[in-house]
């Protein structure tokens, strides 16, 4: 049975024009991402991973080429359409958590549940990431791993179809990093959320269904894991 395609890109290109030089962040990328799949994007800095993630998530516009989300061509959407797309379908997790410092854990999650169509309760989302006991703490009162877990709770609270994670463990030590990956794996397994994880850490590829390697703005190689490891088994 063919797997359902969530994202498809065709000759996707992004050029940063500084006036003096043109930098090709993405130089014609063609790829498919499948429903329910946990995909890891690997590659050195500047290889185009984050740019791809931003365009997939509707945070940025492509210079040329096309992106489809199911049957909808995202590259046709204007700002308003992209906002609606993000609001309805995408959850983001960032390297630096990006929690609002003036809001508690619960309220940070509430930021999403306030505008989502069919969200879970903030408490439920936080319970899912194991932070039920830290629910009324402000970001400054939480450790890095806890903050990232709040960020994940915030991302999944709206039951998104896709979860896009840019270096989710980049700022964490290995023990907390593992906890965060456990949470991501759990979301992927239990909720069936298609998950894309960008990382510098090659070991993390072992928990993915598929690994996409990027080099100089291009997709250089695709690898499929026959046998996935659990985060706890990954050593880094």
């Amino acid at each position: 049975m063919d797997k359902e395609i969530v994202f498809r890109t065709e000759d996707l290109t992004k050029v940063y024009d500084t006036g003096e030089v043109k930098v090709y962040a993405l130089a014609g990328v063609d790829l498919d991402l499948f429903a329910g799949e946990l995909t890891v994007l690997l590659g050195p800095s500047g290889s185009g991973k984050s740019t791809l993630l931003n365009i997939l998530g509707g945070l940025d516009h492509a210079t040329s080429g096309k992106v489809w989300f199911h049957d909808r061509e995202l590259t046709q959407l204007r700002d308003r359409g992209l906002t609606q797309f993000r609001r309805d379908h995408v959850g983001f997790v960032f390297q630096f958590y990006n929690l609002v410092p003036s809001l508690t854990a619960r309220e940070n999650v509430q930021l999403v549940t306030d505008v989502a169509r069919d969200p879970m309760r903030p408490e439920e989302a936080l319970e899912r990431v194991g932070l039920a006991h830290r629910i009324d703490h402000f970001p400054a009162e939480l450790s890095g791993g806890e903050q990232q877990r709040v960020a994940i709770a915030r991302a999944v609270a709206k039951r998104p179809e896709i979860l896009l994670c840019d270096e989710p463990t980049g700022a964490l030590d290995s023990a907390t990093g593992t906890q965060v990956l456990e949470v991501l794996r759990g979301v992927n397994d239990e909720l069936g959320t298609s998950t894309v994880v960008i990382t510098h850490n090659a070991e993390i590829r072992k928990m993915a269904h598929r690994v996409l390697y990027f080099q100089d703005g291009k997709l250089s190689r695709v690898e499929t894991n026959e046998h996935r490891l659990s985060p706890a088994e990954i050593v880094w």
Partner: protein
Amino acid sequence: MDALDIKLWRDFKRLWAQSLAIALVMAAGVAVLLMSFGMSKALDETRDTYYERNRFADVFVDARSVPMSMLATIQTLEGVAAAEARVTTHATLDIDGKSRATVVYVNSLPETGVPLLNVPILRRGTLPDPNASDQVALNEPFAKANDLWPGDRLAINLNGTKREVTVTGWLLSPEFIYTIGPGSLIPDDEDYGILWMPERALAAVLDRTGAFDNLTLKLRPGFDPKPVIEELDRLLEPYGSWGAIDRTEQVSNAFIDGEINQLKTLAYILPPVFLGITVFLVNMVMGRIVTLERTEIGLLKALGYTNLDVCLHYLFLSGLVAAVGVVIGWAAGSWLSFGLAKLYANFFKFPYLIYNVSWNTYIVSGLLGFAAATFGAIRSAMAAARLSPATAMSPPAPPRFKRSWIDRALAAVRVSQPTMMILRSLIRWPIRAAMSILGMALAVSILVSSNFFPDSLDVIIDSAFRQSNRQHAVLFFNDLMPESALEEARRLPGVLQAEGQQYLTAVFRKDHYEKRVVVEARRPGNDLSRVVDTNGQPIDAPTDGVMLSRRLAAQLHVGVGDTVEAEFRGTRHGTFELPVTALITQYFGLGAYLDQGMADRMFQQSSQTSIVNVTLDPAFDEAFQERLKELPKLGGSAMMIENREGFQETISQNILITTTIYVILGVLITVGVAYNGARIQLSERARELASLRILGFTRAEVGFILVGEIMLLALLAQPLGWWLGWAIAKLMAESFTSDLYAIPLVLKPATFSQASLVVLGAALVSVLIVRRQLDRLNLVSVMKTRE
């Protein structure tokens, strides 16, 4: 509550000090607006109600011994609704225990007891019995000042006959809200009063049975007084009428008009300044907040919040600041407005105060406050909305510093690195630096422009009392007196010098410009009452034409060399073409001067005198005053020294209140600008300043960068502030100028230096408060956080 609303509320609480500093500036604008409009409206309404309830007349005219039959003719004039004839005169009172002769304006009460027009309000006691010959009523302020109660007796010198009368009651009249004695500059309730006496008795004493001296008219609603006035002038000219006037020229009403207009002027000058600064402050602070919250903005967008949501979020933040400002402004404005209206009502002796809260004023001032905040925040809020989510998530590019000629110049003067940092920052953000300078300059200007009054008044006092009016006392007569009156005056006890002066009334015309003026006929070389030019040089009236005060010349649109048509009225009447041969600068009235000899030739009459100026030997003061109370023809006297003291006292009380208010306003602006400026500096440079500390700079050295930049801006603001202050003061002086007086623009160095000291002091305190936070900066955490 939505999470976004919670964030809004927490952000607002976190920014409370900055928000309050802005809100207070806005509150000042709202309060002044409310106060000026509230007060002027209250005074307007109180006056209008008082006028209406007590049938304040529309037209007033003085003449001498007009036969009563004329009244019937006048009553039939078109537009006249009611006319009332009165017998009037000036008289001197002899009050027990008071050495000074006291002048009163005596006016008759009709046979019916209660006047038809200008109906007095009985405040205490009763009205005099119309048939009594020894009963009088006094205006309340005068009675209070002299401790004269119903039942008290006093002596009045009427037409040379001294008689004892009893005070029956205290009155207030819309005609005499502002009572100013002949020769005085401000109301002096102790030495000048209004006295009502039954017509029958007064007419008998003054030989006016079947005749009147004064007429007041009520016109039909909406009827133009001009044709009535022209007709009155024609009818009454044979009786020495000085010309009829409408309300605008009625002294009491004109003074109140002037005061109310001053209040309205304030409402137009000050609030725009405060609201303008509010716009700038909100702009500066919101700009910084949006910069700091780039990642949060990106996040909100990543989460699916729309551009409008984000834009509104920041506009609501400024709206909260506005709400605080408007509420404080409303509270302070209501309090000040009501308090000051009461003070003014008291000063004017209104019998009551009508203070209606006008919701319009509240709504307009509130909307202006919110508009200022929104206008200030809109640019940043739009920028936040426009930030693309991907850009927002990455840190902003560091500001571009390029080497320019300024850097080469700075390098040449070899300033220290911290100084370099200060200067570069000013050069890189020139608009912000310029706006901060402008803000503090406006604070300086408010202090300069509010403080110029005392200096101007010093000049007025010097000009009016030391240079122009050097006499110790002025004696007035009810009629023109022959020259021999001067000889009589010289024989009074203690009189050292006596000089005469004659007043004539005329209407001056040039093309379609027309002005009623009092013309002074002067003897050359008069030493006691002089006409002085701006250099302090006494000037004699020209013998070949008329000399005009500059304000009068401006109103008639004439200059030296032009000719005016002068239609003289009263006992010396006739129409002449007079060349304007000189102009002078004057602060009081609209002066016009003729040479006495020239006037005598024009009218083909011998010299006469309206007043006598005298200097006195203080040793004979009591004898002089006693003699004044007996003089038959004397209409009154004014003691110039008391006049001056009264003037200074009244003025200095008012100035103390207003100066205090303006210092508070100036400090509010400075704190608003300097505190917010320093907070933003600290926020932008926390990392930079922490790095310097890690590199081994001392707290003082790092603090210097923060304090230095703001104080440099404050210093640069001074010259601009002085100039703006001068400009605003000029505007205020011009707008306060009326026919009654002109305010000279006098700005002394002390005014500028005081304003600068206040602003520099307030700026230093504000920035030092922020500097204390610099000491608490946690070096490690600052360096670890991601910008």
